């Protein structure tokens, strides 16, 4: 069956079943690397993508639930030439070890910063409390999100 999706501002049409998890459509059909498979049951956050600005766990979202929505993956957030403030901050703070969790951290934080432009560290921790990192990069990630929030605000006031 043809499923039409809007991913990173592009319209795509996929011949897949409507109950296919969005994660597999993005990774396997569209060959996007951003969202990661970590658990498949909405427990770790590695697969996070933005759907209409909200962070969702693509491993448990069937593609037919996001037809007509705007889907953004890590690829769509920014590029080395034009990085999203979070991407720039993750590089600056060296906010990872293996980095497998980073997609989920960045995407979850991207949605969070839309709602809270001036978060405390504690609010950042709460916002990321359902995203797991096994390497212990948490404090660097919190710093990076705080740093990104600052540069957002500066970007808006300038």
């Amino acid at each position, binding site marked *: 069956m043809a499923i039409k999706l809007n991913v990173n501002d592009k319209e795509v049409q996929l011949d*897949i*079943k409507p109950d*296919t*998890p969005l994660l*597999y459509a993005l*990774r*396997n059909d569209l*060959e*996007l*690397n*951003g969202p*990661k*498979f*970590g*658990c*498949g*049951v909405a*427990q*770790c956050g*590695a697969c996070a993508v933005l759907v209409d600005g909200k962070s969702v766990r693509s491993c448990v979202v069937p593609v037919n639930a996001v037809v007509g929505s705007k889907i953004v*993956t*890590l*690829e769509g957030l*920014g*590029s*080395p030439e034009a*990085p999203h403030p979070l*991407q720039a901050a*993750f*590089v600056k703070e*060296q906010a*990872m*070890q*293996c*980095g*497998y*969790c*980073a*997609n989920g951290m*960045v995407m979850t934080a991207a949605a969070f910063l839309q709602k809270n432009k001036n978060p405390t560290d*504690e609010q*950042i*921790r*709460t916002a*990321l*409390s*359902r*995203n*797991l*990192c*096994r*390497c*212990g*990069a*948490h*404090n*660097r*990630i*919190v710093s990076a999100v705080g740093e990104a929030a600052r540069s957002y605000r500066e970007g808006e006031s300038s």
Partner: protein
Amino acid sequence: MTTRRSFLQGTGAIVLYFNMVPTSVLGQQVAAGSNLPESLVANPSLDTWLRIDADGLVTLSPGKCELGQGIQTALAQIAAEELDVAFDRVRVAAVDTATSPNEAYTNGSRSVEVSGAAVRAAAAEVRDILVGLAADELAVERNKVGVANGVFTVDGSASKIGYGAVVADLQLARNATGSASPKSQDSYRLVGQSLQRIDIPRKVFAESAYIQDIRMDGMLHARVVRTGDREAKLLPPTDFSAVSRLPGVVKIIRDGSFLAVVAEREEQAVKAAKALVRLCHWDTAKLPMQSPTINEWLKKAPADVRVVAESGAVGSAEVARTVSANYSRPFQAHASMSPSMSIAQKSGDQLTVWSHTQGAFLMRGAIAKLVGLDEENVRLIIAEAAGCYGHNGADDAAADAALIAMHMPGKPIRLQWSRADEFLGEPYGSAMTTRISAGLDANGQIVDWQYDVWSGTHSIRPAGAKRAGHLFAARQIAQPLPAAPVGNIPQPRGGGDRNAVPLYAFANQRITKRLIPDMPVRVSALRGLGAYMNVFAIESFMDELAHAQGEDPISFRIRYLADKRAIGVLEKLREQMAAAGFDAVVAPAGVGIAMARYKNSGAYCAVAMRVVVDTETGQLKLDRALCAADIGLVVNPDGAINQIEGGVIQSASWTVKEQVRLGLNGVTSTDWASYPILTFPEVPLVEVALVDQSNEPSLGSGEASQGPTAAAIANAVANATGKRIRDLPLTAARIKKS
């Protein structure tokens, strides 16, 4: 004096173990009298390590794998330093058995030590050869030629030519001689700098960075169907024809009790595997112990008993009082964020396997044996996955993919473990228990020290053909490979007894290791091996003794230390604690400290943890950690701090939360809900200070903070509540009950 005795305790045990002698296992005999680093002796040809192209771009090809620890960056820094090129002119190739040097496993925090030394020597020699070529080319005396930024200089001024101009004449297919001397440290411009890691941009911008990002034409998706017990037998009826008719299913592969399904699409493979689970009946053994009875079981299990260190004469000193205590840890999981996977493809008589194993060359031998190919016909290509922290499911998944690929010639097979496959299939860090008994003289001085540790093995890596029997699938297939003997790493490194020998100078001491070869679940190397438990026990006990005598825990430790560097990190920690106001902490908060030198030969690390305990509920809040480390010459300070910091947090997670749960029918921890780890709101702040020791050789930092963190937390809880908990994890229930 060290004596070694060995006898079998208990009855009916078949003891299978082998001593993992580093030289034979690593295949890296250091030639007598050789001045070359061990990895360069094993892989002497310079072209296995370095290539330079006509643009002067350098490709470094080490035998160590990137595991998220930043090793590629550190090695690139060393190469760029010695070659006098800009850091961004160095690329680092992934490990490939077809081209890379064989550096055995990437483990034990020795990559900077071992591979770093080889890269340094190889790069220095290549630079020397290039300088010789330039002297000819420029027709000047060799000693006038230098290099700056990849451009040759003559008498200190830039010439017109750089590396690229002479590479046509560069012959690197020659053995390293060790004739060139590496730079002296005072001229370092890159080593010692916190350069940004080379792998981070591709991860942040979602470029192809991980093994998961490899996609091949015609690639099929596979899943295995199994229980956590590799000896479990698949019982009849085994009519799976209904599943083979499901959409997209290409093949169901059954070889004995090895069962897998291959489908065109990933979600089809997932669905088919779920359908197979419902049709399978397994004959699986009941476990002889469950979570609450691990300690008793360990102490009664048949064991190989050895005194691994002894000095003075235990029992000879005048003892006024004897103090003893027992400590324990449960089984704990690597629980990597990415469940293991692998891609395998059989083409003709060749099998290629893409894997995130830590030991490409050893896996090549193990896989060849498993699938019945000659080793030359198997190629392993390494790509990065999420951090593994030791021997997780990576090797088993590679073996699974290889077995499946052998049934599907020509097809690239992508085998992905589910989250539950990983939790059930990975070998855990062994449950352990220890007993310490100290004799004190009339002044409270420790004059007698007896230490006993009970542990399963920490090494069942499938290291080559001989140990292919360690692979999960090796016991499942119709013609199973014999179970390989479990590893017994001798002192001074030690497995279960890693760091069991205290760094403290006690007049009389005996350390006894009891290795239990036959454990009810698979166990192998988890970050730090036995050091995590032994440091937890020794450093908890030292705190108990200090406290009983009303002595400051740092001064108490220093009294028994002869090692200046150990004293150095404790004194550094004392400064950090004063600056952070850790001296003024009152209940319900508490501060605890601990210190160890990893393996008694690696990095020194002292940790102070501040906690707050709610005595009503037992709820423990880890508030802030301070850490002082001495890792010798630091190649990349921020990279080292990142690893130490991550080690503190991971160890904190093990220490306050983690245990693999065992029920009668096997492991019941199958997901993040049944195996919870530390989350953002629970993670303490961590500050790491590196003690400057740049004249000492580099020491790996990856495993140094695991043990001290555990004891620092237990000591902090004891200081906050007055109650001592000796069994891990330090759960709220235990804190409340104590």
